[in-house]
């Protein structure tokens, strides 16, 4: 139920069995079925979710009703609307399950209590947020400086699991490209000119 959570935690900050049990008290195990929402826009995002099993996405819907995927999360990844979660502000994002999921949720109260009582949790969160910031920066740099083809190539190199498990139109949405553009890029990659 918490295997992946603690595996990921221990990769960043080593915990003793007693410390694991202490943290476990604050965690909420939650199953989600495919297409069910973990969080919907208009609500304050109540949790940070770590994926034990399954896949989720977060997305916004623009004024024309068009969905734009902001993140994916597979096993071992976390997903949330961090700004809404941290500042208790109404969120414009949605998070739903792309597959049946098993999650570990951390509520804001649990998060705050762990931050103040457990320095190792604070270290873990710092590393997590730094990694997420770096990933976001790379994504932004890619958006403004790389060709769509190179962005796609770097995406499939970095996240081969997402390419296998997520529909192509969702990857297109995440990359800010049209599904047709992604199709053209894929066929160019698969059939390179001699």
């Amino acid at each position: 139920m918490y295997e992946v959570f603690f595996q990921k935690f221990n990769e960043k900050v080593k915990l003793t069995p007693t410390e694991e049990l202490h943290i476990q008290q604050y965690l909420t195990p939650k199953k989600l079925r495919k297409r069910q929402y973990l969080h919907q826009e208009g609500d304050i995002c109540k949790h940070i979710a770590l994926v034990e099993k399954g896949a989720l996405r977060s997305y916004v819907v623009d004024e024309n009703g068009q969905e734009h995927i902001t993140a994916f999360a597979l096993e071992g990844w976390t997903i949330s609307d961090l700004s809404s979660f941290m500042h208790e502000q109404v969120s414009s994002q949605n998070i739903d399950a792309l597959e049946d999921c098993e999650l570990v949720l951390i509520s804001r109260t649990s998060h705050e209590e762990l931050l103040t009582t457990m320095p190792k949790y604070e270290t873990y969160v710092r590393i997590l947020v730094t990694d997420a910031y770096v990933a976001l920066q790379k994504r932004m740099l890619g958006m403004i400086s790389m060709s769509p083809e190179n962005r796609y190539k770097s995406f499939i190199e970095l996240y081969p699991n997402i390419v296998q498990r997520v529909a192509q139109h969702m990857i297109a949405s995440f990359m800010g490209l049209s599904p047709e553009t992604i199709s053209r890029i894929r066929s160019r990659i698969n059939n390179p000119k001699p």
Partner: protein
Amino acid sequence: MNTKQTIAIIGATGSMGTAISKSLAKGNYRLLLFSSKTEQLQALASQIQTLHPSADVIVSQCPTDASWEADIIILAVPYQAQQELAGKIKQVANQKIVISIANPLNETYDGLVTAPDTSAAEQLQLLLPHSKIVKAFSTVFAADFAQPVISQKQADAFIAGDDQEALEVVEQLVSIAGFNPIVAGGLQVSRTLESMTLLLIQLNIRYDYNWLAGWKILHH
């Protein structure tokens, strides 16, 4: 709240479980019903679907799985079954709201089986130390759900618990069910609430209220 909350109702085919399930089907909730009486459970789910075609009702095969999937768990089982069920859901109910509806009555309905310095809800909290136990739906009868307004007065439904956020969530559930929610205090107040129900049951038997009776606090 836009995000649909999932509520597991454990013991859904009992008279209280059935009444709670039917009344909450009116709200924006996803209901996961569990009971060991599988045929009755299926019939209840179909009945709810007929009454509320847009209701999101699913029958569950296992109390542990239902509670794992749930955001809120309602233990609609007699006090005597509480300990065994708590054992089954303990791991998956961590940090979740668990509603205790049980009144620990003795077999002759003239006393409580719990000691005066505790209550069914406090016992449940000891069994599920990391869950947010809330006492609710314990001071109303099953028949009240179909008719929460008695003699032109909306019945009060008392709530007790130690977690403020959980109390607010449960207040909403009680309102959806048609009652006037009153937060009575911390979980320890469950002792008083469970005794109030004992009295209501005794009065019902003595004066033949036909199990349609409830509490109403008169105030200015």
